[in-house]
């Protein structure tokens, strides 16, 4: 009897556990409310409002009129917007690939031991610490076709002067040059951290097997460093896609619209033309592009992990 009572109590206890857990969770559910409110207020609401505005003809200082998907239709036919997407992709591709290659080379160089290595590393990462707007202003002065120091340097080595940011053909590569100078140190730092964490055993084994330096790099360093490369790639891509300050300060999107990326186009629509409805539609499309790119990068990362 006692045994059966104990069994019943146990059953009751077992039976009560899920209910108590449920109550327990409900009580603590309120602790999520502040966090949820912040997320709602800072992420969900702005997004919902942006979507709402993108369906209106909304001008600062004027009225607000429902236009449905008219802003999106206009975007599809707006050559200036379509070219700005191409320019953004062109700028992003160059601003990611070049720092990745140079950053990897720099990381390999700084991973080796040599005199004054610490000082050299510090000097190398200095550009990253500079304020982008200040950097952009200094570069602008250096790019001046007649009075800038860069053309003077070119002439000293017998090369013809360049138009740098003052010609449509050279403006994006020149802006990429500033971006590369500024952010290659960041890639180098990420990869240097990765190199420092690699195990030494595979290298010793490869050495015993007679592997060359290139083979060790190709078959040991690169695969082991791949997760760090992907992290650097994601950070660089996000940074390049959102690049605004440097481009705006140096060219304001010019000459003409030759360096007008989506960010510059968006800024002008929203804060120079005050077309907030149209600008909101640009934001939504830009967000979709970023989501697409992020998915590709995450898929790449997952594949690297699996490998």
């Amino acid at each position, binding site marked *: 009897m006692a045994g059966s009572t104990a069994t019943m109590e146990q059953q009751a206890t077992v039976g009560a556990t899920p209910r108590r857990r449920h109550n327990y969770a409900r009580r603590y559910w309120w602790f999520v409310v502040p966090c949820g409110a912040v997320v709602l207020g800072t992420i969900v609401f702005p997004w919902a409002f942006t979507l709402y505005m993108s369906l209106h003809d909304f001008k600062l200082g*004027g*009225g607000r009129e429902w236009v449905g998907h008219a802003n999106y239709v206009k975007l599809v036919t707006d050559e200036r917007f379509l070219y700005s997407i191409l320019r953004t992709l062109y700028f992003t591709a160059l601003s990611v690939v070049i720092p990745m290659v140079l950053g990897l080379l720099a990381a390999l160089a700084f991973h080796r031991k040599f005199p004054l290595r610490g000082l050299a590393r510090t000097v190398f990462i200095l550009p990253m610490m500079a304020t982008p707007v200040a950097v952009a202003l200094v570069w602008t002065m250096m790019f001046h076709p*007649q*009075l800038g120091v860069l053309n003077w340097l070119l002439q000293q080595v017998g090369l013809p002067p360049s*138009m740098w*940011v*003052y010609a*449509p053909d050279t403006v994006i590569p020149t802006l990429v040059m500033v971006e590369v100078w500024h952010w290659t140190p960041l890639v180098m730092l990420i990869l240097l951290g990765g190199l420092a964490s690699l195990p030494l055993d595979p290298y010793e084994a490869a050495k015993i097997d007679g592997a060359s330096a290139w083979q060790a790099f190709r078959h040991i360093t690169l695969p082991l460093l791949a997760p760090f490369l992907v992290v650097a790639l994601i950070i660089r891509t996000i940074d390049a896609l959102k690049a605004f300050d440097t481009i705006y300060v140096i060219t304001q999107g010019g*000459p003409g619209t030759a360096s007008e990326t989506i960010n510059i186009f968006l800024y002008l629509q929203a804060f120079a033309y005050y077309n907030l409805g149209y600008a909101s539609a640009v934001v939504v499309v830009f967000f979709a592009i970023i989501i697409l790119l992020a998915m590709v990068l995450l898929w790449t990362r997952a594949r690297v992990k699996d490998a």
Partner: protein
Amino acid sequence: MTRCEAEETMMSRGFTRRTALTAGAGLLAAPPLVRQANAQSQFDWKRFSGERIEVSLTANPRSTILIQNQREFEDMTGIRVGAEQIPEQQHRQKFAIEFASGRPSFDVVGISLHVNKRQVGKARWCTDIKALMADPTITAPDFDFADFGEGAVAYSTQADGRMDTLPEFTDYFILYYNKELLAAKNIAPPATFDEMYDSARRLTEPSRQIYGNVGRGLRNANVVLYSSFLLGTQQRDFLDGQRRLISDSPDAIWAGEFYKKLLRDCSPPGVSGFNWNESQTTFMQGRAAFWIDGVGFAAPLEDRTRSRVAGKVGYAVVPRGPAHHHCAMFGTAFGIAEQSRKKGASWLYLQWASGKANQLRYLTSGAGSPARTSAYRNEEAISQSRFSREFFNTLIESARISRPGLPEIVPVTEFRDTLGSALTATIGGADVATELRRATEAFRPVLEQSERES
């Protein structure tokens, strides 16, 4: 002769009939003078003492002058002033967003009329100051509204007759020229656009990196230079009488062709990316003979610590066009926020800021051409200025021939971007007529929608 000796001499001459007549005339004239003096002494500058107003200004040498002398206003009125100056582009965005929010953080705001006049007027962001001006209890007797130039007053007045800003500064585009470069080739300052182009061609020597001209080629910024040429044509304006866009007319194309050849044939390589700052640097280094731009650049050009052409700069009005002779005019003014609860104190600030003393400071320091005419008549101050008589004569003559350099429309920045892109493309060799037609077609619906909403 000392003062005492002079008084003794007068006394020894005695009290003559002439003296009596003079004294009588003096007595007859005394009542109005006394009334004016009483009005001056009765005007209570301190009536808003203890209040604090916020002032939002665009960063420029004129705002710096106001902030430097702000203590003068605070001591006179007992009103505390919190003034900020923000770079032009950012300031335009800031005040527009704050006004649209319904609760601007400032009481007084500086406004570029050539960009924001219609926007501010349409939204009724600033209070009509006519009522304030008519109230003798808060308008100083020596305010002297008639002293403001007609052009400046017209610029500050909206189409419906409301005057929602008080003029501060009128910016005229003038011709700066390098006297040394012109003298070396025995060339006189040009009187017409054709002469300007011919001289600029003769002065251009790429091998020495000397160019006949420099000017704005960058999108948006370049439209104000282009309009200097358009103003010389029969058409003169960007809009016709029915406010329709005519920036692809034969006259507009002529102005575009002139702009193209001047910047393409006689200006430094890369000029398509030049704004005023690159143009100023090039001119300051003695690399360009002509430069058409705003009057405010005289000060840096004559600064011996920064400029290689200081003392060698010539000033002239913009050359005559094929049909008319005008220079482009732009302007700034002060407005009082409609939502401000300190309109009285703000109005006193406006009277001080655009008062005769500050306007004279603008002129003599080279910070810009004042909206008041009295400053130009102050011979003593002008003679003591570091700028040449030629500079002041150019300003006076420019005021006489000036016309607004941009159309008074709400989407003026979008207009400048659209037309500016076309103009930049022409420097690269694109066909002027094609580019202007494309730009006009692109902007026409924007303008039509804006006009409908207005």
